[in-house]
């Protein structure tokens, strides 16, 4: 089961309103390489990991990703704080406002809603882990694009933190993948 801790993995302390940046960062809330996709991907895949190491790693990274999803939500909330409808219209969030007001809805930066088809589960550990490694690389690339778009240090710092986590996760998934290649997949199945 899951238990909630009333704290962030990394502090979000954004003081400057920036609706354009909010719209870009929303992509990590509901885009194809979002934290939501990552959490659901690993959470679903953990049920068919062949051994204890695999079950633990997928479970624990899925859990961490949910914390990152909350960080992204907090960033979007802070970046849109006190925004007027006029401002939202001007910054390209008028369409978003018509459906969602100032609520947080999982969409990408172009407004395309989240769909679970962003995620693959094959029941095959090697295929799933290959997907996971690619997903971490794609998320890293998205964070780099977001860092390129950002100008405020308070926004850049948590983005750098999240980008670095993708690198760590990629390496752990790769270690597990290499291990399964080495020992063969029969063990533990």
């Amino acid at each position, binding site marked *: 089961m899951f238990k909630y801790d009333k704290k962030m993995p990394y502090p979000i*302390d954004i003081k400057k309103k920036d609706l354009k940046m909010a719209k870009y960062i929303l992509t990590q809330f509901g885009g194809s390489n979002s934290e939501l996709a990552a959490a659901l991907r690993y959470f679903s895949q953990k049920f068919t990991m062949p051994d204890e190491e695999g079950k633990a790693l997928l479970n*624990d990274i899925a859990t961490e990703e949910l914390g990152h999803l909350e960080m992204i939500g907090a960033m979007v909330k802070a970046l849109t704080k006190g925004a007027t409808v006029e401002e939202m219209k001007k910054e390209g969030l008028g369409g978003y406002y018509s459906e969602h007001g100032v609520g947080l809805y999982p969409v990408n930066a172009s407004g395309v809603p989240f769909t679970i088809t962003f995620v693959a589960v094959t029941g095959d550990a090697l295929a799933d882990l290959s997907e996971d490694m690619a997903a971490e690389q794609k998320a890293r690339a998205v964070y780099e694009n977001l860092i390129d778009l950002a100008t405020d240090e308070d926004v850049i710092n948590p983005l750098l933190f999240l980008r670095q986590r993708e690198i760590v996760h990629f390496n752990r998934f790769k270690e597990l993948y290499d291990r399964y290649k080495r020992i063969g997949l029969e063990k533990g199945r």
Partner: protein
Amino acid sequence: MLFEIENTLVSHKNQENKLCELDNGFFKGNMFEKLYEGYKNYYPCRIEPKSQEMKDLLEIMMLDFAINDLNLYLDIHEDDHEMYEVFKQYAMMYKKKLMDYERKYQVLCLTDDILGKYTWTSSPWPWEEYDV
């Protein structure tokens, strides 16, 4: 040094998995020195807490972060006893810091809300303004 958490635990002999100091690892988002990959000329900033409460909370976040990063490593290297010792020490420090913080400020874990009055609902929630 800004944070008074002991950083003496990083003398992990295995150079391949050398750990960063707690605060550095946290700000970088990576406890493992060799695994760190920077981006362009960006370097993660240290956060200077504005109050004692934020400083205490940051220390808890740092310990929790280190525990999580070691957790992922240990998931697939359960035989690394040396790393497990570091994990154990961080986990013990975390428990202590958490208890001290919860007594002083506010409850972070529901099951610790046993000090006489139900306070779980009180603000701020983590996604609200932090003012670090």
